[in-house]
């Protein structure tokens, strides 16, 4: 134990003397967390809290267009622009504006759209009335080529396009349903009675009654705490930052080999194992401290930058073993890189790029649900996946320590395998290279 403590002390002195390195070890992950949380906040808010201009060319000038416009105007997300310099927008002008890049989306309601919807509603109403022996409304063959057209700025992302499409679809469906019920009502209504005024409020209530509302899984949680970029980004980028400990660890080991102090250790009986354990303990602690710093930033710094505060779940103490296991995996990986590679030129790019690859595989950049099945299976190889999922259990799902035991076992197993490989390579190299 004394030998391990001596190694920890030695590493601490060396790190403390490298002031710039020491600062960077904590400063860079801190900057990473702040920048990523802020940058990711915008797409996270995408289509939830953002309000943007939506160009609308109304060639219909009738009920459907009015209802779509009304729906869009009621929405918090859209500011409907249907005229420019006092002139109503045409489809041509709308497309020109989108090509200019100032606007991101435009919709064109075609001429006769309302008529087409009414015709469809009448057709449906007639089919129903045939069966119950009511009257008949005028109807013709339906046209297939009638669409509300959407145009997007080519730089718009698919998720943006999809959410606009969903919103628009909702208003059209609402309008169509409204019209259908109105036509059905008209069949049974006496002359002179106004169906629209009678039933419009009722319809609103009916549709609200079958609306959707998100509820927290855990009765102690609040949805708003979980739907924030901080909650999703701080843990993910914290783990990513922790794995960059690979570079200082490998650098430290290569420097010791270059300055031959590693040879001194090799000449001391049994020292290599104690030195390895000391290094692993030391860097695991440093890495865990990095995690603590990054959580502290999420808790106390990000709220000052206009973001929400990090919520640590109902069992925040469970984060300690998780952080230690992630730190151990990162350290074991760094140790392996330091053993396998012979120069910093080999180790540094490999270490950095492999961390980026493992983080991509582990769902740090893109949620795993969006990745193909093969990638989702491959994610199980990445310790970053286990780490992130464990933290998500605690801070997003309000889970407890028992929920993350499999994750901790996976992380410890990963670390053990890497350390055994390091030991094997180290022993083999000592005798085979010579």
């Amino acid at each position: 134990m004394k030998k391990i403590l001596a190694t920890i002390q030695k590493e601490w002195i060396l790190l403390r003397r490298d002031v710039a390195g020491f600062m960077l070890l904590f400063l860079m992950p801190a900057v990473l967390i702040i920048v990523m949380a802020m940058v990711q906040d915008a797409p996270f808010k995408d289509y939830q809290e953002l309000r943007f201009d939506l160009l609308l060319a109304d060639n219909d000038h009738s009920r459907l267009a009015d209802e779509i416009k009304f729906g869009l105007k009621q929405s918090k997300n859209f500011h409907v622009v249907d005229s420019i310099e006092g002139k109503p927008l045409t489809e041509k002008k709308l497309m020109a504006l989108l090509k200019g890049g100032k606007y991101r989306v435009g919709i064109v309601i075609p001429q006769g759209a309302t008529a087409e919807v009414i015709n469809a509603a009448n057709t449906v109403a007639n089919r129903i009335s045939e069966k119950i022996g009511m009257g008949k409304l005028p109807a013709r063959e339906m046209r297939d080529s009638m669409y509300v057209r959407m145009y997007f700025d080519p730089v718009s992302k698919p998720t943006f396009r999809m959410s606009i499409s969903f919103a628009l679809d909702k208003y059209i469906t609402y309008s169509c349903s409204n019209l259908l019920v109105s036509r059905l009502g008209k069949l049974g209504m006496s002359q002179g009675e106004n169906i629209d005024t009678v039933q419009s409020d009722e319809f609103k209530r009916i549709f609200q009654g079958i609306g959707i509302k998100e509820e927290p899984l855990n009765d102690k949680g609040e949805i708003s705490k979980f739907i924030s970029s901080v909650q999703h980004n701080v843990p993910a980028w914290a783990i990513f930052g922790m794995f960059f400990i690979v570079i200082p660890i490998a650098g430290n080991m290569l420097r010791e080999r270059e300055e031959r102090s590693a040879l001194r250790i090799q000449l001391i009986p049994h020292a290599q194992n104690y030195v390895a354990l000391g290094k692993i303990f030391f860097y695991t602690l440093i890495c865990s401290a990095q995690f603590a710093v990054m959580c502290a930033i999420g808790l106390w710094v990000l709220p000052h930058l206009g973001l929400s505060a990090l919520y640590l779940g109902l069992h925040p103490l469970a984060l300690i073993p998780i952080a230690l296991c992630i730190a151990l995996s990162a350290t074991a990986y760094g140790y392996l890189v330091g053993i396998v590679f012979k120069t910093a030129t080999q180790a540094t790019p490999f270490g950095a790029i492999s961390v980026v690859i493992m983080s991509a595989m582990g769902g740090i950049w893109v949620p795993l649900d969006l990745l193909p099945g093969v990638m989702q299976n491959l994610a199980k190889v990445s310790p970053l996946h286990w780490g992130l999922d464990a933290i998500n259990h605690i801070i997003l799902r309000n889970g407890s320590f028992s929920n993350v035991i499999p994750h901790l076992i996976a992380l410890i197993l990963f670390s053990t395998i890497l350390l055994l490989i390091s030991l094997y390579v180290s022993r083999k190299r000592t005798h085979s290279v010579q």
Partner: protein
Amino acid sequence: MAHAIEITNLHKTYKGGWSPALDGLNVHVREGQVMGLLGPNGAGKSTTINILCGLVKPDNGKATIFGKDCIAETLTLRKMIGVVPQQIAMFSNLTAWENFRYIGSLYGLTDKQTKDRAHDLLVRLGLDKHADKRINRYSGGMKRRANIIASLLHQPSLIILDEPTAGVDVQSRAMILDFLKEYNQQGKTIVYTSHLMEEAEQICDEVVIIDEGKFIVSGAPLELIKNTTDCKKLEDVFLHYTGHSVRD
């Protein structure tokens, strides 16, 4: 007197090597002796030292130190031998004292043992006033002396030095040689490699000249000078046996 080192028919060829580094080498070193292992570049001196330290496995043959096999009993032997590598094998960003404290604790010494031994060696090698300076701020000679101290903290019975005076000034060299003589007088066996024949002549009880991995000749320096035709100093003997051609 018993043998401290016995090297018998040692063979070693490195992977991809042109020729064998050791080709049936036989060397014997008596306990309490200062033995100079001499040879031109590529003669096999460093390979021999690395085998004795258990860092390199021989292809064939046997090397023992105090009767213990250098490969099979490496860990036991490492407690008994002190190796001073050719390079400065120390943590350059730590002070000399911090280096000694760390190395001492890895040898399992108590803080007091390390402190007492390091202090004694620091005084004897003239570094006591510089113990709190970082190694990377030391001169070449100071680094060499600190490198020797680090190898002697555990008080080994056999010391193996690989060119301990390479690149140091005259004063530092004199101090190192005096120290080694004094250390030998305490009954310690010293094996020492150098390219400086004058130095070997000065401190060695016996020298062994090897070349191309083979034993060439051995004996006390003065005896070798006397018994070799037209030789007035050890360098002449060395050139007589190893030739004048430049080695790669």
